[in-house]
C-alpha cells in the first residue's frame, strides 16, 4: 500500500497493484487495525481502496486488478457492505459471497423480511409527509418494536459522478456545490483542495481563513437547525421555532459574505470568490455573538426540560463498537465516544494552523447526538470569531493551472455531517478520468438502520432526525 496525506497527489504508477487475494487481506487487516474505509471503487479494471488512519493522520491507497467478480470483502469487514453494493451496481463486478448484494440506488423489490404470525411490515416513502427528499424505508415490526429496518435510496440519483468525469469544466464547480446542497462549502472545499493539489496552486492564508469561516458557518447553521428539528420531533416547540430562526441567522451570515445563504460561489479553486473587509467582519462578529446568545437560550432549555430528556435519553443508541465496525463518521460517531474528526486528524488549510477541539459524548443515543452538536456549535462559533478577528492578509484567489497527469489525489474535509472524501484521478491530459465522491451519509445511513433495531417505530422520526442524513449526497 502507498501512504499519502490529505490532498497529496501521487503518481498512479506509484501505487503498485496487489495480487487480488493479498489486496483483500491487507485491506481487511488494516481495518482490523483501526483504519477506516474512506473510499472503495472500480476504475479502469482495478479495484481501489482509500483507507484513513485517523491516529497517524495518513491515508493508505491500494489497488488490485479485477475482472467479472472477486471474493467479497464484506464478510470480513462490515464497512465494505454499502461500498461493494455500489460497486456491483455501477460496474457489474460481483463481490462473491456478499451477504446482501443488491443495488443501492436503483431500487429493489427484494426486501429483507422477517416471517411470523405477529410480524407486520411498514413501508414509508419515497414521497414523505414534509418538505423533504425522497427515500424508502421498510420496517419489519413486532408490535411497536422494530426488528429490522431496510433503507432503500436512489430517488435523487442524477448521475453526478458521471458528470464530473472528463472535467474540470465550467459546470464542475456547480455540480460539486450541489452534491449535497446543505454542504456546498464542505464539498466545495474537498474539490478545491484536490484541484489545488493537482495543479500546484498556493492558496493564501487569507483565503484559507475565509474558507474556514465558510465551513464553520455551514456547520453552525445546520447544527442549529438540527437541534430545532429534534425539539420539534418531541413536541417542544419553543426551541423548535427559535432554532429554526437562528439557523437562518447563520445562513444569512454566509449570504453577507457571498450573497448566497448556502455559500454558493464562496469557495473557488485557488481561493475564495469574496472578501470580508473590516466593516463586513464587524457586522459578522456582531451577528455571531447575537446568534450564539440566542442559541444558548434556546438550546439550554432542552437539557433542562424533563419531557425532552425523557425522549432523548436512551433512544436510538448505537454503541461505540457498532460505530467502529460500520465505519460511522461525524457527530454520530463522536456521540458514541469515537474522537474522529478530519479537522483534527487530517488537518488541511486553516485547520493546519488553528486547532478546534474535538467534541465527543459517551452514550451514543439521540441525546448524545444532540449534545455533540451543541458542543460543536459553541466551538465553531469561537473558531469563527477568532478567524474574523485575526484575518490574515493575502490575495483572494490564485491561478490554478492545468492538473498534473496520471495522478490520484484523496481529499478529505470534515463537513458538518462528517468526513467528506473526494478521490480525483487524472488521465494523460490532466482531465478527471474518475471523480469519486463519498458523502458522510454514505457511511451513516446504515448506522441509522442499526440504531433502529429494537426501538419503537414511533421513535423513528426522532432517530432519523438525530442522524439527519443526506439523500442527494448519498444518491449522487
Amino acid at each position, binding site marked *: 500500500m502507498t501512504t499519502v496525506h490529505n490532498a497529496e497527489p501521487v503518481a498512479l504508477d506509484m501505487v503498485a497493484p496487489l495480487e487480488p487475494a493479498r489486496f483483500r487481506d491487507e485491506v481487511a487487516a488494516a481495518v482490523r487495525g483501526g483504519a477506516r474505509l474512506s473510499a472503495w471503487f472500480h476504475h479502469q479494471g482495478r479495484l481501489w481502496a482509500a483507507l484513513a488512519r485517523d491516529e497517524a493522520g495518513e491515508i493508505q491507497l491500494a489497488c488490485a486488478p479485477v475482472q467479472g467478480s472477486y471474493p467479497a470483502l464484506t464478510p470480513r469487514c462490515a464497512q465494505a457492505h454499502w461500498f461493494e453494493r455500489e460497486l456491483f451496481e455501477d460496474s457489474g463486478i460481483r463481490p462473491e459471497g456478499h451477504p446482501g448484494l443488491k443495488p443501492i*440506488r*436503483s*431500487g429493489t423489490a427484494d426486501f429483507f423480511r422477517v416471517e411470523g404470525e405477529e410480524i407486520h411490515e411498514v413501508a414509508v416513502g*419515497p*414521497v414523505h*409527509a*414534509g*418538505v*423533504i*427528499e*425522497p427515500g424508502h424505508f421498510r420496517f419489519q415490526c413486532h408490535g411497536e418494536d422494530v426488528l429490522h429496518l431496510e433503507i432503500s435510496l*436512489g*430517488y*435523487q*440519483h*442524477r*448521475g*453526478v459522478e*458521471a*458528470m464530473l468525469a472528463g472535467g474540470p469544466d*465550467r*459546470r464542475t*464547480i*456547480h*455540480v460539486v456545490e*450541489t*452534491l*449535497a*446542497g*446543505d454542504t*456546498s462549502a464542505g464539498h466545495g472545499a474537498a474539490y478545491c483542495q484536490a484541484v489545488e493539489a493537482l495543479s500546484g496552486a498556493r492558496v493564501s492564508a487569507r483565503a484559507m481563513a475565509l474558507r474556514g469561516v465558510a465551513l464553520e458557518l455551514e456547520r453552525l447553521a445546520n447544527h442549529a437547525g438540527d437541534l430545532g428539528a429534534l425539539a420539534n420531533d418531541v413536541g417542544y416547540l*419553543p426551541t423548535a*421555532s*427559535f432554532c*429554526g*430562526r437562528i439557523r*437562518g441567522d447563520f445562513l*444569512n451570515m454566509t*449570504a*453577507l*459574505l*457571498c*450573497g*448566497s*445563504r*448556502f455559500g*454558493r*460561489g464562496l469557495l473557488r479553486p485557488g481561493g475564495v470568490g*469574496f472578501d470580508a473587509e473590516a466593516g463586513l467582519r464587524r457586522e459578522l462578529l456582531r451577528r455571531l455573538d447575537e446568534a450564539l446568545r*440566542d442559541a444558548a*437560550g*434556546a438550546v439550554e*432549555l432542552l437539557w*433542562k*426540560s424533563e419531557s425532552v430528556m425523557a425522549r432523548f435519553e436512551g433512544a436510538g443508541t448505537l454503541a461505540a463498537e457498532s460505530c467502529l465496525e460500520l465505519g460511522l463518521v461525524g457527530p454520530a460517531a463522536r456521540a458514541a465516544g469515537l474522537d474522529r474528526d478530519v479537522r483534527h486528524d487530517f488537518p488541511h488549510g486553516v485547520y493546519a494552523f488553528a486547532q478546534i477541539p474535538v467534541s465527543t459524548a459517551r452514550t451514543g443515543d439521540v441525546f448524545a447526538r444532540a449534545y455533540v452538536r451543541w458542543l460543536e456549535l459553541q466551538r465553531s462559533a469561537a473558531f469563527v470569531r477568532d478567524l474574523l478577528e485575526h484575518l490574515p492578509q493575502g490575495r483572494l484567489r490564485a491561478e490554478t493551472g492545468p492538473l498534473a497527469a496520471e495522478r490520484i489525489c484523496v481529499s478529505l474535509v470534515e463537513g458538518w455531517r462528517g468526513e467528506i472524501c473526494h478521490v480525483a484521478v487524472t488521465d494523460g491530459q490532466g482531465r478527471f478520468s474518475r471523480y469519486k465522491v463519498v458523502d458522510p451519509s454514505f457511511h451513516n445511513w446504515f448506522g441509522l438502520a442499526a440504531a433502529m433495531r429494537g426501538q419503537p417505530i414511533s421513535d423513528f422520526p426522532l432517530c432519523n432526525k438525530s442522524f439527519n442524513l*443526506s*439523500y*442527494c449526497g448519498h444518491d449522487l
Partner: protein
Amino acid sequence: MFKALIARLKQGHRTTPWPDGPAPELPERFAGRPRLDASRCRDGCAACAAVCPTGALSGGALDLGRCLFCRACVEACPERAVEFTREPAMAARRREDLVVRGGAYRLAEALEAESRRVFGRSLKLRQVSAGGCNACESDLNVLGTIGWDLGRFGVQFVASPRHADGLLVTGPVTANMREALLKTWAAVPSPKLVIAAGACAISGGPYRGRPEAHDGCGQLLPVDLFIPGCPPHPLTTLDGILRLLGRLG
C-alpha cells in the same frame, strides 16, 4: 416553564411585516433579477456565453429558468453588459417570460377569476422533491419558520396529495422519481396547480442534459408558476406565490 417563558420574551416577535411593511433586507451581495444591456455588447463577443455553466446566455438574452445566479458572466463581460440587481421578484407564469432582454420583465400575473376564487384564500400544496440538491427544499421549509410564517396567507404544505390543491416541484425529476411524481399528481383532485421552483425543476439546473434525469418537471406536468433561483430566495418564492394568488401589487 418559567425559563421557557423568559426565553420566549427574550427571543421577541420576529415575523417579517412584508408585504404590508418593508421586506427583510437582502444582503448587499445578493444576486437578484439581472439586467442585460445588449447595446453594450461588442460584435461577435460571446465571453459571457463561453463561461456560463448552463447555457443560459445566448443572443443578448439571459434565461432565468436556466440561470444559477453564479455571476460568472458578470466577471467575464468586458463591457459590463450583464448586471445582477438585488430585486427578488422574478417568478413568471410562462416559461418564455423567464428570458431577460434588457431591463423589462414580465412578472407572474394572477390566476384568472375562478381559480382565484377557489385558491386565493387557501392554497394547500404537496411538495415533491425530485432529484435536486435539497437547498431548494431547505429554503422552502424556511417559509414555515416564524420569520416568514407562510400560514398567515392561507398557504400551507400538506402531507397528502389528496388534501392538496397542487404540487410544488423541486429538482430536475430523476428517472427514479418520475413514477412517484406522476402518481402524486394523479392523486391531487382537480382543479389543481403546478409550481416549479428552482433552476432544476424549470430546466434541469446544473444537471441539465443528464440521461438519469429529465430537464425539469415541465416535460411531464403543466406548470402554472416558475420560480427561478438556485435555490430561489424565500422572498422570491413567497412573492411568486402571492402574485399568483393576486395578493400582491
